């Protein structure tokens, strides 16, 4: 059996073992549900698609049009309900059927009934104002022509509305962060399982440590990528169906960027986790060796959240070049659209160099520590250990 064939066998075992594991299936479903939940939350909380319902007593079609136009101007979709009289209007407002009710909108003393003052006031005021101006001009015999349409010319297209893309990137980074932690843990647990059960000696009698490590990381990586893609498909489909995002191209582009950074991040973190895990022989000791790396992930996660609010900040810019933080921060900056290509390429190059280093040193630690059972192996010992 060739070296590559053995790597493939190891990878296949990792995949088949995981997909038969109930815990894995449940955690996968939970993540997908979380993404759907985030989208629904976005839909409910997002101000861009808010609606306002206004009751009207004694109105006409032009009142309805005026209210809707005024609503559009202040970023809310207005639905108008005809109400028979003031009593019905008071009832509807009290019951919360409408956000406000206008009495006699075209008369001399229009009145607005609301639970308490809010955004409805402005909509109604400007609608009533517009109706009144229209009526007065008509009374003076002025024939109103529709206002000319303003054509928009974008001088700097990158300044377009990147808000939705940043939101998508942030959701993507949340998923990426979760999957890096999850699959990093899988790699680490797998390494310790082989060490604590001592099966590693049997495995290493047929192959080299690097083959075992490569197979494990590749197998779980394929699984992680599959899960990432599944979430992306669910997310993109859901986002388009629910109308959370209106520009499909921008959405898909951002999702692809996040998937790309997931692969880069996984290669980095899986190698570090595997090397760290090889130092211990019991699952109980895993926490202590993984904590430093997990902390790096958490720091990157919080910086990326901050970058979502202020993508141009110095912190975001600097940390998007720090190995380990890059995969979390860069997608958000890229979604915000103010990253020159050379910066992206530089970040990729730095990460690639970091991965090469981590694979090399991590592989040495792994090979040196793998057959040392009992207690915790010191990093220095593992690096110095003979490798058969």
């Amino acid at each position: 059996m060739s070296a590559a064939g053995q790597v493939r066998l190891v990878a296949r075992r990792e995949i088949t073992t995981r997909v038969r594991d109930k815990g894995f299936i449940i955690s996968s479903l939970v993540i997908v549900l979380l993404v759907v939940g985030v989208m629904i939350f976005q839909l409910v909380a997002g101000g861009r698609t808010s609606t306002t319902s206004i009751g009207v007593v004694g109105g006409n079609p032009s009142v309805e049009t005026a209210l809707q136009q005024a609503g559009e101007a202040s970023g809310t979709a207005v639905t108008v309900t005809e109400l028979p009289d003031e009593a019905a209007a008071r009832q509807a407002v009290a019951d919360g059927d409408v956000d406000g009710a206008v009495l006699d909108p075209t008369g001399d003393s229009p009145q607005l009934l609301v639970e308490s003052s809010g955004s409805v006031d402005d909509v109604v005021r400007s609608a009533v104002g517009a109706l009144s101006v229209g009526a007065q001009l008509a009374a003076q015999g002025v024939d109103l022509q529709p206002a000319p349409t303003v054509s928009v010319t974008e001088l700097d297209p990158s300044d377009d509305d990147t808000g939705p893309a940043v939101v998508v990137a942030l959701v993507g980074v949340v998923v990426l962060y979760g999957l890096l932690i999850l699959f990093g843990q899988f790699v680490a647990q797998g390494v310790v399982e082989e060490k604590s059960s001592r099966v590693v000696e049997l495995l290493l009698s047929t192959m080299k440590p690097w083959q075992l490590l490569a197979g494990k990381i590749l197998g779980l990586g394929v699984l992680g990528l599959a899960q990432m893609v599944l979430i992306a498909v669910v997310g993109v489909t859901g986002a388009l169906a629910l109308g959370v995002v209106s520009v499909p191209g921008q959405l898909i582009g951002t999702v692809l960027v996040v998937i790309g950074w997931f692969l880069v991040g996984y290669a980095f973190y899986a190698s570090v986790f595997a090397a760290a895990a090889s130092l211990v022989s019991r699952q109980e000791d895993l926490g202590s060796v993984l904590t430093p790396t997990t902390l790096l992930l958490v720091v990157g996660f919080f910086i990326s959240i901050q970058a979502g609010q202020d993508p141009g900040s110095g912190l975001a810019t600097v940390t998007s070049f720090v190995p380990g933080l890059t995969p979390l921060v860069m997608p958000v900056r890229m979604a915000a659209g103010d990253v020159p290509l050379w910066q992206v390429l530089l970040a990729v190059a730095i990460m690639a160099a970091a991965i090469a280093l981590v694979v090399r040193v991590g592989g040495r630690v792994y090979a040196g520590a793998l057959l040392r059972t009992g207690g915790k192996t010191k990093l220095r010992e593992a690096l110095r250990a003979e490798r058969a």
Partner: protein
Amino acid sequence: MLEFDGLVKTYGENRVLEGVSFAVAPGQMFGFCGSNGAGKTTTMRIAMGLARADAGQVRWRGAPLDDAGRQRIGYMPEERGLYPKMKVADQLTYFARLHGATSADADRAVQEWTGRLGLADKRGERVEKLSLGNQQRVQLAAALVSGPEVLILDEPFSGLDPVGVDSLADALLERCRAGVPVVFSSHQLDLVERLCDAVGILARGRIVASGTVPELRQREGGRQLRVVVPDAGPGWAGAVPGVRVVSEQRGDTVLELDPATDDQAVLAAALRTGRVTHFARREPSLVELFREAVAA
């Protein structure tokens, strides 16, 4: 021929192996004996590429063992280890495939060996659910399912009940007859004596004695006599020159003779005391040979 040639291994200040050499022919069962910590496991791990020798090499069919060669060896480590959560058949198939067996061959071998080792009804069970004895059988099956050209087994009999010992011994003898060289280490010297064509005793980092058990007997303690003379008084044999009394109990005497001493002189001395009911060359057991070799 499986050859261990001049293996030297040092761990820090501790010289574990100081030139271990022996050879195992195809179809030969080689018992590897030695006190705890003598270096048996280290020797086997060097052969399996799990430790690196400072000097010396292990050869199979004249070529130094490399990764490809090791895939054709069935190995049972002293530290038993299997995937606890993997099912028996899945696990054995995996190990067979890692040794290069095709999927079909692996399946067939797993069926065969689980049947022969009494694991037929355990194929679908997770290893962690099995009794220790059955786990041991799975471990052995893992060494056998790839149809190896060579077997290297570190303490394969420890932890087995007598029935398990018999089925393992049968399996090893069968492989041996098929032309596979088998090396196994054991502290159960009676078992080694019963099964092995050749024995090597490791002490102080070297093979201090090796060969067939009859050869060892001749070399080490071939000049012992057991004489039973019921009517003789104590010390009857002490008078014969070149004879040392090993033990004496109511006329049942074990004597050790200098190479030059004629055993017929001893018989004559015995007859002078009266009736002789037993006079024979005494075959020392492997245990005694081992003690002597290790103590020397």
